[in-house]
């Protein structure tokens, strides 16, 4: 019997794509439990149930930063005694997993792209240049899973999951939240989860509108190179690469980006890569499935218009 524990810091009636993928993965194990901080609606318990997962351990939301979540996950681990814990791959969840792994003196595996029922984890190494298989050696392992790694597939469970309160000891935080600011929402799909990403680099020369326009025609997320975010043309949140977001979409359209190692590290596992660059020697063409030598300011608007024409 292998039991899995999932950890979420929020679960609304519309779980994110990454959360649905995690629910799909958890359902592969003999039993699965969700641990959650914060409120849950009836709809959401129904959704968890539709994956064949019957139990939700619920703790209140924390008002500090991370220490509460570490305590909740650790308490859930002790309650459920799982053999595997699954979490999202972003820096917050990685760190929560890492701290619990240190407390429990067990392994943590990040950047997983698949997890099998015997707890073998498949993951990317060296920015996707290698695919490794990693096995836990202890009876517990914590795994953070990249979005877009598995197909969302509810198992077809019919009853809603049962919510039980989780007792968590009070904690003393060593840090204080002294500022909190909500960033403006773009209304576009999130970069890490999107099926299509259109990214712009220094070549956009201060004007992201051709990139945004093509992204909107495709229902895609917008990305950028560090040159573009450093220049202040677009927020750092949109940076793709080693020190930005790692993406692995079906389609990545790169416009006015040379293809430096740090940029490639964040996008080279995309299924299809299309590059638009006016320099025929740009390294991005070495990894592009389809390359166009030319000016993005001409090509992107033309493509956006053609897509809209075909859609109407």
């Amino acid at each position: 019997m292998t039991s899995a524990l999932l950890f979420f810091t929020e679960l609304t009636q519309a779980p994110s794509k990454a959360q649905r993928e995690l629910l799909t993965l958890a359902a592969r194990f003999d039993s699965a439990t969700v641990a959650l901080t914060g409120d849950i609606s009836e709809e959401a318990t129904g959704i968890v149930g539709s994956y064949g997962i019957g139990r939700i351990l619920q703790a209140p939301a924390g008002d500090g930063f991370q220490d509460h979540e570490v305590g909740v996950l650790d308490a859930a681990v002790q309650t459920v005694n799982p053999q595997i814990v699954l979490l999202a791959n972003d820096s917050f969840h990685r760190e929560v997993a890492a701290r619990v792994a240190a407390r429990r003196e067990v392994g943590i595996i990040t950047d997983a792209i698949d997890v099998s029922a015997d707890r073998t984890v498949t993951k990317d190494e060296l920015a996707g240049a290698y695919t490794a298989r990693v096995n836990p050696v202890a009876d517990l392992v914590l795994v953070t899973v990249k979005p877009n790694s598995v197909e969302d597939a509810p198992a077809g469970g019919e009853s809603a999951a049962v919510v039980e309160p989780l007792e968590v000891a009070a904690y003393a935080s060593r840090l204080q939240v002294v500022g909190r600011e909500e960033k403006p929402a773009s209304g576009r799909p999130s970069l890490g989860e999107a099926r299509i990403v259109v990214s712009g680099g220094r070549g956009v020369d201060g004007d992201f509108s051709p990139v945004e326009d093509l992204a909107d025609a495709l229902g895609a997320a917008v990305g950028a190179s560090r040159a573009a975010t450093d220049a202040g043309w677009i927020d750092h949140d949109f940076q793709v690469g080693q020190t930005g977001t790692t993406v692995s979409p079906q389609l990545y359209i790169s416009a006015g980006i040379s293809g430096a190692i740090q940029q490639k590290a964040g996008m080279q596992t995309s299924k299809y890569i299309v590059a638009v660059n006016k320099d025929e020697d740009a390294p991005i063409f070495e990894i592009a499935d389809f390359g166009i030598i030319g000016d993005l300011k001409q090509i992107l608007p033309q493509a956006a218009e053609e897509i809209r024409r075909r859609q109407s």
Partner: protein
Amino acid sequence: MSDASSTPLTILVLVKHVPDAQFDRHIDQSTLRMDRSESILSELDEYAVEAALAIAEERGGPKAGNQVIAATMGGPKAVGSIKKALQMGATSGLHLNDETLAGSDATATSRALAALVKYAGNVDLVVTGMASTDAETAVVPAQLAERLEFAALTNASRVEFDSAASALTISRDHGSESLKLSASFPAVLSVTDQANEPRYPNFRGIMAAKKKKTEEVTAADLGLDASAVGAAGSGTEVVSAEARPARTAGTVITDNGQAGIALVNYLAEQKLI
């Protein structure tokens, strides 16, 4: 009256010797470990060294007794990364050099590094990069904070040091929010490439580094049992590592005024739209 701002700080900055990403990087098929022959100081750790030096300088720098210890764990060649940090301005080096450490996963690495920080003694602040450029797990700083019971100021895109209060305030992204987090010492601080512009070692720095001392220690010196580190102390085991087929260049066309249409045709052919 005791003034915190006059007490010298001991800052330990962790530097990692990693395979140079400018070359093709390999995983050795017999050991399933990274080929480390062409290695350099992890690019992302240069930001950590810069942050450590800047904080020490706020307090008056080495003249006022502030120490910035560049510490690493890794084979004999890893001393190269300490050397670079010393050239940038770190005051001394600490090298955990022991064969038994090879093959440590994140949990075993943080166990060894926590022992190294304790060995250094009275450390106020540990500074690291946001991730190593080889393993890229980005979890060791948080694990270190957990083990040492230090505040975890991780993934800082901006660092402000209030010397009088001996407190650090960082900015970090958190989902749809941008947070400011504050803590006093002792703390672990990990910085992103947004946090600063790392300095280059200048001629004086390079000459001065030659006189700086680097202490070499083994796992046993730190009281670490061989079963607690390396593959033996790890919670995970790599069973295979396969190189993905390299991406190759596909069709490349030159815009003749209709390339936008050609792009859409391509997407339609591949059933992407």
